[in-house]
């Protein structure tokens, strides 16, 4: 799998939905370092499904994880997806970044394309309060079902106090 190949497929599939792409180079190896390229792309919220579908058509797909952040007015999600496992140095890491406004924090689920993405989507529901439209199971994974707060959101002062109380035993969080 080549980086250019992946980029072209993404461009063809998304068109306007692909806001920005960047190829980052990582020097890997000790004696004779080689350059390993990664793709970091910014996409529209609705482009996530066609993007994943295009990557899936390209080769064996591995959904590593979705990471995310409360970025003030918006919630940012980063899909770390690796495409093309099975050959030496043949896998390309693609990070798809998208943002949703807090008052409409909804993203289409990609579980129908990658069933294995369910755990990480469910985790984002409980930690960031994002809604995944079409996810087969939206229950909590790690936190109690009745937990009133989303731990990674920064806009609820009550939550900060609540979480501080929970880690109080440590005695260093004052």
């Amino acid at each position, binding site marked *: 799998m080549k980086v250019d190949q992946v980029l072209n497929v993404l461009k063809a599939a998304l068109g306007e939905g692909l806001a920005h792409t960047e190829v980052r180079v*990582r020097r890997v*190896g000790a004696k004779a370092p080689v350059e390993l390229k990664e793709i970091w792309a910014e996409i529209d919220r609705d482009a996530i499904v066609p993007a994943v579908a295009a990557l899936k058509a390209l080769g064996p797909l591995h959904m590593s994880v979705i990471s995310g952040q409360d970025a003030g007015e918006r919630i940012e999600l980063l899909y770390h997806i690796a495409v093309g496992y099975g050959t030496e140095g043949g896998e390309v890491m693609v990070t798809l970044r998208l943002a949703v406004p807090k008052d409409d924090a909804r993203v289409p689920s990609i579980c129908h394309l990658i069933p294995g993405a369910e*755990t990480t989507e469910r985790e984002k529901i409980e930690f960031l309060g994002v809604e995944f439209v079409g996810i087969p199971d939206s229950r909590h994974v790690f936190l109690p079902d009745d937990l009133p707060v989303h731990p990674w959101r920064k806009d609820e002062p009550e939550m900060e106090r609540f979480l501080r109380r929970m880690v109080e035993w440590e005695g260093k969080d004052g």
Partner: protein
Amino acid sequence: MAEAENTFRIPIGPIHPALKEPIRLSFQVEGERIVGVEIRTGFAHRGIEYMGMRRNLIQVLYLAERICGICSISHPIALTQAVEQAAGIEVPPRAQYIRVIISELERIHSHLLWAGVAAHELGFDTLLHLTWKVREKVLDILEELTGNRINYAIPIYGGVRRDIAPDQHPKVQDTIRYYRGLLDELLDTFLRDPSVEARTRGVGVLEPEEADALCAVGPTARASGLAKDVRQDRPYLAYGELGVKAITPRDWGLEPRGDVYDKIVVRLLEVGQSLDLIERALLEMPDGEITSFPKIPALLAHLKKAHGEGLGWHEAPRGEVIHYVRLEAGVEEPVVWKVKAPTYSNLMSWEPMFEGQEIADIPIIAASIDPCICCMDRVHMVRDGSEATMHKEELLRLSREKTRRITDHGSRITGLGGVR
């Protein structure tokens, strides 16, 4: 369906026999057959990512090391690589080799630990004691090299904290020789034992299509025949130069079936692969610096100025570990820190593995993905979940009874296939 009449629900956990860690598995059974399973995690959630985002990066490194006791170098390796990418830090060649050597030693001890647990779940305690006895040797060499049996505190941003001295080389080579001599015996004991075969062949099958769709990682995916290994697919550190090939049951001359037996095959063969890697790394390790930041204050100052984001990955004994970090200039703590442990990816693979199996096979199937709950949960809060109705002793007794039942009738064992 008539399931309302014939289906019963058996909740197991949050304390479970095969795991030694808290998780709740709620099984729907018809007679002895499992028809469905519901998995509830989170009993070991400690909020480590949350804590990490409120501490400076050196403190985060300590936290990462303590996400899991068994893969206590895997998380720091992924974290340091993520931070090194974010902050533009180079790692000296020698440090890369040292990281590889310690992680491969960790893989050996983790796989041997698992083999012992698997033997125990099947009721072969003699094998458990043998496996764990020989595991001591690798813990000894880890202690010799790092000062600790676990929590090695070796990787730091920009390098490693301890060098491997010339007088330590023979000790490592001794260890390699010791395991080389032993590996055939272990392979023989596990893979050519008719009782082990009878209890693990065709049990807890994960089809390759399922493993691919559910994004399974590590030996769980490889036992199903997927050549999926981060060291091979996305080389990092010195792995590209050392040349790693994903091990599947084909390396043992068998067509992969994705059952528990194949998972034993893959893990044991990987012990041999790690021995080769350590031997080569030790031989080819270049001289030179072991860190690009010998002074911690200088490192902290550099990290505080750093602005960027990075991804770091590592093939832990159980599969892919990945960390995402974002740093902002002028802020000591990472703005975002996301940790993904292998069990997190393998969690969903349990469902197809359990379906259609017998209650007595629950412990060995649960153990077969080598689950690491503390890694996955990274968090806390035990309040619900007091409905454990099937005690671990009971389940273990069932599992062992099945082995006895099988071994008492020798005739049933032959002809199950697998060993040629």
